[in-house]
């Protein structure tokens, strides 16, 4: 039977198990939206801006581990998706972004709403396809999903000309996908794994350094086994939070620019770093010339190009973290490193995350502590800025996929739409969105679909009336010249939430924090927005200034 290209696309998405598509309709994608009309197996979620659609697809993928799907029209629809695609690419999130394209005979003619989407997105996606004929659609959909979710995951773009959506062709969906030029290496080299085990045995001051790759590979269980079996102290990066429970005595909390002093000192004094699904990012290492000068490095990563990119590596192991750790776990035993463990415990006790509590103003860290107290099991979706760092520091994550944030690209505006995707993907979980006043307003329009769908999102704004992280840098490095960061002209977010149709609360005093959080718990028929008016010029500490070594950390209070 012959079907329209748009119908073949939708049927292909069903074969891939797609539950939700996040999209914004427009001219060149209308046949696809038409094919989704009345569709019951796949739910179309209309968002209010294409950026929201791509972040929602991303949030769904991060929370569930499945491939998120975003859909937009050509030209501006597609370019609006770009920030969300780049966000997913930087954090290796499996996503398929579908864009309508102008008719094939118009391509290249500067037609209305035409944009070379393949060209624009080339450096920010794992792969991309331009479809000019309906008979290509089935194979491309199958390939796109295969590529998006295997190896190092990432976004794949399918750009479909409008005539390819309209033309009819027989529907034959491939049963299997075999791409001769794409064979991810998932099993680690046995000799290398044996070398790693030998180094671990010899080390006197080893640390485990785990990143988002552990979450992506669903290897948290194997990481826990490795840590518990060896009793080696572990630091988990911003992207990996929850891969190992931060409440465990061996956990040193996150490393890097705003990480724990313990983790940063441990890096500096270590003689062996076992990196798993982490990429020695500049926000983690600080000045590379001062980074872990005495440490040998074992680097386990699915992406060979990540190994040796920033630091020289002694034992590279290319492979899927789950497979490699399973093998490694067979070859390790408890490390004989008591003096080192004692040193770590001493640092941990001496330099906890801390702040000065005040009675007349709400401290942002206090809000996060209270959120943790009352929502410890929730999925936390943070935005980007000071609130993100405080959330990472003061909320103790214990499970993978419990913490979603744009760590790589650092995209402000990510969190509200991502929270929508996460809530749809995990309907039985409470989803807490910790936002900033600057980031919230960047995608505030997505409150509309959240309200329409009655999603019980807890949207907590840490409102310091500034673009806070930039202001902090201006205070420390630009002589307090607060250029373009003063947000005292913010609207009243509680009233604004009410105008949208959500519950809106405003909290200005420390004693009102907990009652408001408890009240929010009881609101389950739609989103609740709490605008926490916090200390305006509170800074995030500890802090390793950009370009400095981890040992040069500014501890803040102590």
């Amino acid at each position: 039977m012959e079907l329209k290209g748009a119908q073949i696309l939708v049927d292909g998405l069903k074969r891939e198990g797609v539950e939700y598509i996040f999209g914004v309709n427009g001219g060149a994608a209308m046949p696809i939206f038409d094919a989704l009309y009345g569709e019951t197996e796949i739910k179309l979620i209309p968002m209010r801006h294409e950026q929201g659609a791509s972040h929602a697809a991303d949030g769904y993928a991060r929370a569930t581990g499945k491939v998120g799907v975003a859909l937009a029209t050509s030209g501006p629809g597609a370019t609006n998706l770009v920030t969300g695609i780049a966000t997913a690419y930087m954090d290796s999130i499996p996503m398929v972004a579908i864009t309508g394209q102008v008719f094939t005979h118009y391509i290249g003619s500067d037609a209305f709403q035409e944009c070379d989407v393949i060209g624009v997105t080339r450096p920010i996606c794992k792969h991309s396809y331009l479809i000019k004929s309906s008979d290509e659609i089935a194979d491309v959909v199958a390939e796109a999903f295969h590529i998006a979710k295997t190896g190092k995951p990432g976004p794949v773009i399918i750009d479909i000309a409008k005539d390819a959506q309209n033309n009819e062709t027989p529907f034959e969906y491939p049963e299997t996908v075999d791409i001769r030029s794409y064979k991810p290496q998932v099993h680690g080299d046995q000799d290398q794994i044996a070398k790693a085990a030998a180094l671990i045995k010899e080390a006197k001051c080893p640390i485990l350094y785990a990143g988002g790759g552990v979450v992506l590979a669903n290897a948290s269980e194997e990481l826990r086994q490795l840590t518990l079996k060896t009793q080696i102290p572990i630091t988990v990066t911003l992207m990996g939070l929850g891969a190992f429970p931060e409440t465990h005595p061996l956990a040193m909390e996150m490393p890097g620019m705003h990480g724990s002093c313990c983790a940063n000192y441990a890096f500096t004094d270590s003689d062996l770093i076992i990196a798993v699904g982490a990429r020695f990012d500049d926000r983690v290492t600080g000045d590379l010339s001062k980074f872990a000068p005495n440490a040998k490095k074992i680097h386990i990563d699915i992406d060979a190009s990540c190994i040796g990119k920033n630091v020289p590596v002694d034992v590279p192991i290319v492979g899927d973290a789950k497979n490699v750790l399973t093998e490694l776990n067979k070859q390790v035993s408890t490390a004989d490193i008591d003096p080192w463990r004692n040193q770590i415990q001493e640092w941990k006790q001496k330099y906890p995350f801390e702040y000065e509590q005040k009675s007349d103003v709400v401290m942002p860290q206090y809000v996060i502590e209270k959120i943790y107290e009352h929502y410890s099991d929730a999925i936390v979706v943070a935005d980007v800025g000071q609130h993100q760092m405080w959330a990472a520091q003061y909320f103790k994550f214990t499970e993978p996929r419990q913490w979603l944030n744009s760590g790589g690209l650092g995209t402000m505006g990510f969190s509200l739409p991502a929270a929508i995707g996460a809530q749809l993907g995990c309907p039985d979980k409470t989803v807490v969105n910790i936002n900033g006043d600057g980031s919230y307003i960047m995608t505030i329009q997505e409150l509309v679909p959240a309200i329409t769908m009655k999603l019980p999102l807890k949207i907590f704004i840490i409102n310091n009336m500034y673009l806070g992280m930039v202001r902090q840098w201006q205070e420390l490095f630009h002589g307090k010249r607060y250029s373009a960061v003063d947000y005292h002209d913010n609207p009243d977010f509680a009233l604004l939430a009410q105008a949208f149709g959500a519950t809106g609360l405003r909290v200005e005093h420390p004693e009102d924090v907990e009652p408001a959080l408890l009240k929010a718990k009881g609101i389950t028929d739609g989103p609740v927005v709490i605008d926490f008016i916090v200390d305006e010029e509170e800074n995030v500490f500890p802090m390793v200034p950009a370009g400095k070594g981890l040992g040069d950390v500014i501890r803040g209070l102590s």
Partner: protein
Amino acid sequence: MNPEERHIFSVLVENRFGVLARVAGLFSGRGFNIDSLNVAETHDKSISHITLVTHGDAQIIDQIYQHLNRLIDVIEVTDLSTAGTHVERELVLIKVATDNPQKRTEILQVAEVFRGRVIDMKPASLVLEITGDDGKLKAAIDIFNTYGILELARTGKIAMLRGSEK
């Protein structure tokens, strides 16, 4: 700063539109240099062969190798500079001014030395085809420059491993 080395990569790719842009984008996006580039279909119409000459320190060369491998449309990458002994050739077309018969005779004699072939001859110019490695082509171009080169085009290097090394 580590010493820079010249490397020749042989890259087999899917013969599809857009593949060259992905390869070129990999270099431009990371500030790596392409010294020369040749792309053409192979005996298998579904595969194109790219010969790419680049330079950089060991770390950059490794990154280039890894990132080429990472492209979905890339079937196989070989760093010919490290994988074994290889042969390399480049073809150049040189249009030389021949203002008078005596000069023409001289140019033809020089062309003979480089085993060049005349592929076009007009009263005031002729076009020579010369193949060889870098050194030979440079020598030829230097000499013909003294007669006045009107136009010059090079294929960029093509290369492969010797005999049974693959």
